[in-house]
């Protein structure tokens, strides 16, 4: 047996697109599998490292995971810059090229439609963080104990209404930011906000959105983000990108 390898697929693109000069995972050279008009950017990976059991173990090793995730992303982004590319989920692996080609042939028509839709567009991430002030609810300290149960209940009710209103207004602000930016995008989607405790900032993330923006509209989109930031001086708007269209790559017809 020669040293066994598997076929790792990074992303799908057009067969005519140039292969980026980017090393693959473990420094293996990239290759392009061509299925008619469709191209799959792949590299060999050692079976010893990427077979099912090994992979399961590696996935628990954060160092390994970061290395592979960043390489996967770097390849996908390079493909995206070289032409339209559809990112695949990390660790899409076949036993050999033939098996990969067989599977990809089944979905080629769908993929080509999606590539047409994504062509000339970038993904931009927008996170919207609440203002730090909103974190200290203006609940007046009430040192005086309740005089009666009814008083207490009334006060509780008022408190709950206040926090309810604050949450509602936060949702409204997040919606308005989202809608304003969506006007400049071909497609948009909202991901679940990331947890504030771990996000490295105390303010809650009100919005974690992704926008598919035509490259020609990039300037307009970013200007719109800047203008929104001007309107929301208390809050923070964080832009990431341009990304390959990760959030818009689903094979929806």
């Amino acid at each position, binding site marked *: 047996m020669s040293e066994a390898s598997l076929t790792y697929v990074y992303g799908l693109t057009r067969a005519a697109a140039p292969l980026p000069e980017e090393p693959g995972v473990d420094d293996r050279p990239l290759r392009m599998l061509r299925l008619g008009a469709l191209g799959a950017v792949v590299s060999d990976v050692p079976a010893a490292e990427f077979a*099912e059991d090994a992979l399961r173990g590696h996935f628990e090793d954060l160092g390994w995971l*970061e290395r592979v*995730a960043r390489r996967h*992303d770097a390849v996908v982004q390079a493909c995206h810059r070289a032409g339209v590319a559809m990112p695949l*989920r990390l660790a899409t692996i*076949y036993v050999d090229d033939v098996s990969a080609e067989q599977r990809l042939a089944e979905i080629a028509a769908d993929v080509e439609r999606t590539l047409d839709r994504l062509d000339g567009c970038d993904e931009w991430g927008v996170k919207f963080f609440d203002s730090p002030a909103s974190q200290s609810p203006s609940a007046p300290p009430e040192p005086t104990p309740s005089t009666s149960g009814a008083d207490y209940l009334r006060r509780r009710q008022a408190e709950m209404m206040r926090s309810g209103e604050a949450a509602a207004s936060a949702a409204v602000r997040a919606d308005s930011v989202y809608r304003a930016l969506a006007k400049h995008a071909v497609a948009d989607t909202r991901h679940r906000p990331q947890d504030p405790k771990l996000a490295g900032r105390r303010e809650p993330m009100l919005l974690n959105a992704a926008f598919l923006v035509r490259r020609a509209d990039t300037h307009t989109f970013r*200007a719109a983000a800047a203008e929104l930031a001007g309107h929301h001086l208390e809050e923070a708007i964080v*832009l*990431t990108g341009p*990304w390959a269209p990760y959030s818009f790559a689903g094979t929806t017809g």
Partner: protein
Amino acid sequence: MTSPAHRAPAPMTNRPEPAGLADVLERVLDKGMVIAGDIRINLLDIELLTIKIRLLIASVDKAREMGIDWWEHDPTLSVAERDVAAENRQLRTRIAELERQATGSGQLDSAPEREETRE
């Protein structure tokens, strides 16, 4: 790039931030097109993975330092929660297996825990 600002430079960034590990992992593990591969890393594994990573990074500070937080509200995780009973069962079976292997060398005569024998 400095685009003409309409207002005073706000405390926000119009300049894109470099991709943090959290953002990269969020995308490559949770987004991106899913095609069945020959090597099965199915969604359940990824759900379990998020839990495992959380356990690995025991301290919140360490996680914050690395910018990792995305599992907190990972939608796939909430799906996992629904199956949590099934997963627990699997994990318990696995642990029992491992324990059997671990104690396999030394005979169990004097083993204090007897739950297993109760049938």
